[in-house]
């Protein structure tokens, strides 16, 4: 019995997610002691809302990275989906189902373009998606003249709120649209990646594309799926963002790609594909969200936020790399 516990413990200690969880635990305890606002339900909801877009996009990028690719163009995809969706809602109306549907379909179409280019041209995906990022953003700003869209109908402005309650600070809180969407996306991605055949095929392709192809996996199909999925989630995240900010600016998501990438790799997802867990991604997003929230609550000047984020990223990726090196040595 003790042996069994020890071997479980040994497996746990080897995992990147374990260290991440310990780090988050320490930060949470520290923040809980130093700021009485941190553990209020209101603050926890605020944190979830503000990290919803990051979390949704991170799920999409996670799937692409597992498949051995990368997508830098998704902020542009999201911006275009957002613009099309907002134009429709402003001129015709509709409801949230239609809004999500339009944004997701636009996202999927742009994602499929990426997939076809990456698969056909056989050039590193980062190069293709940097090109499409420029292409999509350039065209969007050219055709939209960089104009903002606002003045959405009431149903859009109010959003959806379930189980509302009044927090200790007097504001209303509840399961709002961003939180519901975030949770739904995480649950669906988790089901997809660990319980379906498609999910295992994505892992297989990321691990070794040649081997995957020889056992009969349709690589082109998987490419279409992962980039399409990334596009769809970018579209969905863009609706959530519109609902939170109540306006659409074509350039509001510019530069977001590297933040999302940082969150995903913080969680231990490998850049070469095939390795990583959704749990790690969720922890990575949570770590960034908690850090930002904590620094604000402790009234640290915002100038420090990027420095601390950078330090955490460098520290965390170094730990992952050293850990992998050690395991490789033990294995040899």
């Amino acid at each position, binding site marked *: 019995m003790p042996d069994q516990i020890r071997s479980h413990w040994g497996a746990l200690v080897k995992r990147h997610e374990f260290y991440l969880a310990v780090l988050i635990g320490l930060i949470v305890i520290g923040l809980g002691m130093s700021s009485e606002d941190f553990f209020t339900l209101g603050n926890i909801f605020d944190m979830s809302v503000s990290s919803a877009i990051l979390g949704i996009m991170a799920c999409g990028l996670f799937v692409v990275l597992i498949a051995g690719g990368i997508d*830098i163009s998704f902020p542009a995809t999201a911006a275009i989906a957002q613009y099309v969706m907002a134009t429709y809602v402003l001129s015709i109306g509709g409801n949230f189902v239609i809004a999500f549907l339009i944004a997701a379909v636009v996202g999927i179409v742009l994602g499929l373009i990426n997939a076809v*280019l990456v698969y*056909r*041209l*056989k*050039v*590193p995906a*980062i*190069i*293709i998606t*940097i*090109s*499409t*990022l*420029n*292409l*999509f*953003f*350039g*065209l969007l*700003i*050219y055709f939209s003249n*960089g104009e903002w869209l606002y003045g959405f109908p009431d149903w859009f402005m109010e959003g959806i709120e379930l189980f509302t309650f009044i927090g200790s600070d007097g504001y209303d809180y509840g399961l709002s649209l961003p939180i519901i969407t975030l949770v739904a996306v995480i649950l669906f991605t988790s089901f997809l990646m660990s319980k379906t055949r498609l999910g295992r095929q994505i892992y297989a392709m990321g691990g070794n594309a040649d081997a995957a192809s020889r056992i009969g996996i349709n690589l082109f199909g998987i490419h279409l799926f992962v980039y399409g999925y990334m596009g769809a989630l970018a579209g969905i995240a863009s609706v959530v963002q519109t609902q939170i900010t109540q306006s659409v600016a074509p350039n509001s998501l510019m*530069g977001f790609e*590297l933040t999302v*990438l*940082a969150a995903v*790799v913080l969680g231990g997802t490998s*850049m*070469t594909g095939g390795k990583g867990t959704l749990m790690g991604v969720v922890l990575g997003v949570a770590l960034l969200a908690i850090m930002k929230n904590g620094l604000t609550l402790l009234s640290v000047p915002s*100038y*420090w*936020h*990027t*420095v*601390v*984020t*950078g*330090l955490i*990223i*460098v520290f965390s*990726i*170094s730990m*992952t*790399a*050293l850990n*992998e*090196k050690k395991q490789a040595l033990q294995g040899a």
Partner: protein
Amino acid sequence: MDQVLNAMKLPTDRNIRYLLVILVGIFTIMAIASGDTFFSLANLQSMSSQMPLLGMLALAMAVCMLTGGINLSIIATTNACSLVMASILTISPDNGMVLLLALVAGLVTAIVIGLLNGALIAYVGVSPILATLGMMTLINGLNVLISGGSVISGFPESLLVLGNGSFFGVPMPLFLFIFFAIGLWGLLEHTSLGRTIYLMGSNEKATRFSGINTQKAVLYVYVISSILCWVAALIMMAKFNSAKAGYGESYLLIAILASVLGGINPDGGFGRIIGIGLALIVLQTLESGLNLLGVSSYLTMALWGGILILFIALQKRKA
């Protein structure tokens, strides 16, 4: 078309031939559309003074890509160098010793960042894209923190001449770019470090097992990349007459684009400096030309992306 080019004894490199064809195409279209303005001395001068900043950054990117790596922290490094130099310079702008001190301090900043990047990649074993992404975030944060996000300006004439001066009608930045491009070419083609860089890009493991200290080479590569960023910082300070955290962030992806368009293989091992030079001329003539024709700069941005995809597709079709 290929026979014609072969007959003209142009470089056998397919990539460079395509670039030349594109360039001839652009020149022809511009000559018909607005020949007088496009080929005027003023326009040629303005083009050749704009190109070097992106050029230096593309060189900084390319040297890392040749080893199969990438350097996402080039813009952050450039801004860090210019902020360090600017804050020293403004103590006493007209003192020659202070200028020298500022230059040295900027160079030291660049080398320290390069060593950190290289050490993370070579000794800790982080993948280049992650290491430089992390460093980029960290350096950007430090830039904003130390400068307080404010603009530093007021530089001596001796520095500004690097950006705006000209020598026999040729803008100074172009001289700087040509000087460093030739220097890098010499390093890549005629030193053992250069051979190691190409070898590592082709097969890192084989290079290591043939007794070459690849870890040290990686360290050198990222230091060289940072030093090129320092030169870019000088050009940028002189051109804008100011330094600020967050300048030139849109150049990051364009530097990658220029390198790949110039024939640098993103997986490493292949690519020549002359290709990057041509790619830069293509990008610059395209930008200036479209600008003269009154096309929106955002459409130009879209075109750059489109051209790169088209270019890669052309290469693959023939291969």
